[in-house]
């Protein structure tokens, strides 16, 4: 992997050369994933930018609801989709609640893309094991579609995805497609089923150990609530994965997105500037455990 502070390869899309000025984007479609989560499809108002804008799976943007404020969310669509962008929002705070009140046609501000993204060079030619919980599928979903759209560059794909209940599952339309895809081993699980649920029941780390994907020439990409991540890394270690073979994307309160406002640090590492994608090997070497 590239040095974590090397961001020279990243393209910058600066409005008027000022990194803090947002571009205007328009909400084109809203999907209610579950009662607390919505996916927004959006596009740049500026047509030139629509053509030119590129990003990498795993990168994030700063989204503004004008008058309310700005918050970071990953781009949840794949860079292989060129006609629009997507981000998914769980209603948890001031800005996310404001976002949930908006309708199609509303204008937002967007700055980005920021952060390092998943290391595609490192993933190519490998067996990929995606482990996600709840809305943690959002950043992985960008990578999963990216990988499926370049299927011959990667070996096997396992996706282990779980949510608290069947109603909490996000991106059900994707889960169905991946379930039918013969080149993908899709495993969906819930912590607690309901009367109609006929699928698997069990916590993600436990189901992961039951599915037991081989660690040989494999990389596991993990994202979910912190409690799931904390139990998933040891489960992967028991399956023979080394810390170098585990990737995750971390979440922090990132205001500026560019390593200046100070709040997203873990020791000397800034999640916005040096991440948000880290290997478990990197995380284990962090000075601080404040992640």
């Amino acid at each position, binding site marked *: 992997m590239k040095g974590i502070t090397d961001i020279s390869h990243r393209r910058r899309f600066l409005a008027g050369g000022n990194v*803090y000025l947002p571009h205007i984007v328009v909400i084109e479609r809203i999907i209610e994933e579950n009662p607390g989560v919505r996916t927004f499809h959006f596009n740049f108002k500026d047509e030139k930018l629509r053509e030119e804008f590129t990003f990498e799976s795993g990168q994030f943007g700063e989204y*503004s609801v004008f008058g309310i404020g700005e918050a970071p969310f990953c781009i949840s669509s794949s860079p292989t989709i060129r006609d629009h962008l997507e981000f998914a929002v769980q209603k948890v705070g001031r800005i996310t609640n404001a976002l949930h009140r908006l309708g199609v046609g509303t204008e937002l501000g967007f700055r980005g893309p920021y952060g390092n993204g998943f290391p595609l060079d490192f993933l190519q030619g490998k067996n990929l094991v995606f482990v996600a919980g709840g809305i943690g599928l959002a950043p992985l979903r960008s990578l999963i579609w990216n990988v499926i759209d370049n299927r011959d560059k990667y070996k096997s794909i396992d996706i282990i995805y779980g949510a608290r209940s069947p109603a909490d599952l996000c991106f059900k339309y994707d889960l169905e497609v991946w379930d039918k895809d013969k080149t993908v081993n899709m495993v969906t699980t819930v912590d607690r089923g309901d009367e109609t649920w006929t699928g698997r029941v069990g916590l993600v780390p436990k189901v992961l150990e039951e599915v037991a994907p081989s660690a040989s020439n494999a990389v596991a990409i993990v994202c979910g609530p912190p409690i799931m991540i904390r139990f998933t890394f040891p489960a992967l270690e028991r399956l023979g994965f080394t810390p170098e073979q585990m990737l995750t994307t971390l979440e922090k309160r990132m205001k*500026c997105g*560019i390593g200046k406002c*100070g709040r997203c640090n873990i*020791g000397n590492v800034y999640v916005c500037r040096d991440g948000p994608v880290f290997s478990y090997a990197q995380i284990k070497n962090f000075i*601080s455990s404040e992640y």
Partner: protein
Amino acid sequence: MSSKKKINKKDIGKLLSRWSQQFTVLAPSMESGVATMAEWDGKDTSFLDWYRNTVIPPKANFFPPMEEMFSFQKDREGYHIELPLVNEHKQLIFGIRPCDAKALAILDMTFEEAYEDPYYLAKRNSAVLVGLGCTNPYDSCFCTSLGISPAESTDVDLMLTDIGDQFLIEEVTDKGKELIAKTSGLKEATETDEARAKEAKETSHNKVTRKINTEGIEDKLLACFDDEDYWEKIAAKCISCGICTFLCPTCYCFDINDELVKQQGARFRSWDSCAFPLYTKMPMENPRLEKWRRVRQRVCHKFEFYPMTFNVIACTGCGRCIRLCPVNWDITRVLESLPVKV
């Protein structure tokens, strides 16, 4: 050899008036009892008698406590974003202390790194710094432990040294040299003047008696980073007021917020502080909810993380956080009491 100039102290008013034609001249000023660098009123040079250092660090002149980033308004076509009007007049800061000039050089690293910060750099790159050596450092000052001398600086454009009834003027940068070339009314300094300045600098240097040992500080902090008991003890009397961060010349953390009145709004940034629990709060969790973690963050950011990233300690020994702390928290004692067995 660059020729050195001098000026009579009583002529400082004239000099500042001359510079005022080209620059917005900022000089030490007392505002509601708080010393700060503020626009010079065109006549008052009494600060030469009372000025030791400002309470508000000069970072505020480049990175204000609150700053409009842009305004936005909505009409039938949608949102329009507009940058604030900028003051075209360049700032000349008269009397900046070597510690505070060094602090700006440290801030430059963050604001220049990777993505340039246009608000800070526009003000910074057009400014002229005229340094004034300390003659009367505070007991809380410890700049000499951080490689800074109270009366010498390479981080200013011009450096003035008190040599009695006069100031010796040294050109430090090309920018300073150009300014002197365009400034009339200065006298050539004599060898005696230079000898007197040298002596004055040494005297000032020796007046800074508080010391810390920065040798191996990164390793020492790393060694006790996880010593929760130690940090709990260190943080016990801290009241998380954040004054040490607001008045620190090298602290730069900020928040970004919107204000909106009837479809007309603006985005602002304002100083924020790692002393506050809300600073890192996320909807579901907070990595630095406990006070000891926040105190550890402040100490380690300055003496461990910043050196790891930029190879310089983000402290200049200006002593403000010691002088102005309401509970007498003292960073020099913290650094001297690290529980590391050598």
